[in-house]
């Protein structure tokens, strides 16, 4: 069981306890959101890579040549 550490700033007391069901649910929701964000970022990067490749093909130049144009 994963632990939660709580420090009471008024008394200085430190409490170690198991995560509550609510905290576990919040953890799972955060994890799901992180995975969704990662998937969205990967999809966006893939879309950009495809668009870039298509543009280079239309222009008839390589990525290195395109970099020279904007250097």
């Amino acid at each position, binding site marked *: 069981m*994963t*632990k*939660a*550490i*709580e*420090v*009471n*700033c*008024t*008394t*200085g007391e*430190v409490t*170690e306890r198991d*995560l509550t069901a609510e*905290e576990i649910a*919040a*953890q*799972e*929701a*955060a*994890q799901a*959101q*992180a995975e969704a*964000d990662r998937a969205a*970022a990967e999809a966006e990067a893939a879309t950009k890579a495809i668009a870039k490749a298509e543009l280079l093909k239309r222009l008839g130049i390589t990525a290195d040549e395109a970099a020279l144009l904007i250097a």
Partner: protein
Amino acid sequence: MANTYTLIQAQTLTTSAASVTFSSIPATYTDLVLRVSARTDYAGPNDLMIMTFNGTGGTSYSTTTLIGNGSTVVSNRTTSAANIRNGWVDGATATTSTFNNAEIYIPSYTVSQNKPVSNFSVAENNSASAADAYINANAGLATITAAITSIAFASINASNFVSTSSFYLYGIKNS
């Protein structure tokens, strides 16, 4: 300009923990500062530390993030989120014994208004690979108008902060 910089409480973990919370924070300061040096057992080089106030989740937070590693820069934003994102933390496959370091500033934490947060952090892998050293700057906002009485840290990947991770809470008075 701050006239005081007082340690309120500190916690250095002696065992791994999924969350670390400072509770019953006194309302006697003007601003709060947190200093964190942490590492998690997430199965990768970098984890992401998140923060909530007063046990509130839901849709109360937004974060604007700028991340750079020397070769790549990424900017993103989350809105209506359940937490504020506080930047990268070294994960289990980062170089042994490397930890992130972060400073989080929360001004006017007792004032009845939304709570802005700034965070500046580095996850340094002590590696020759530039891609393993991240710098983060985050601007967060919590739409919580009540005074902040508790602050909780966790991993967005539901991993555990490892032993010797340390969390320091300071209070600042402007008079």
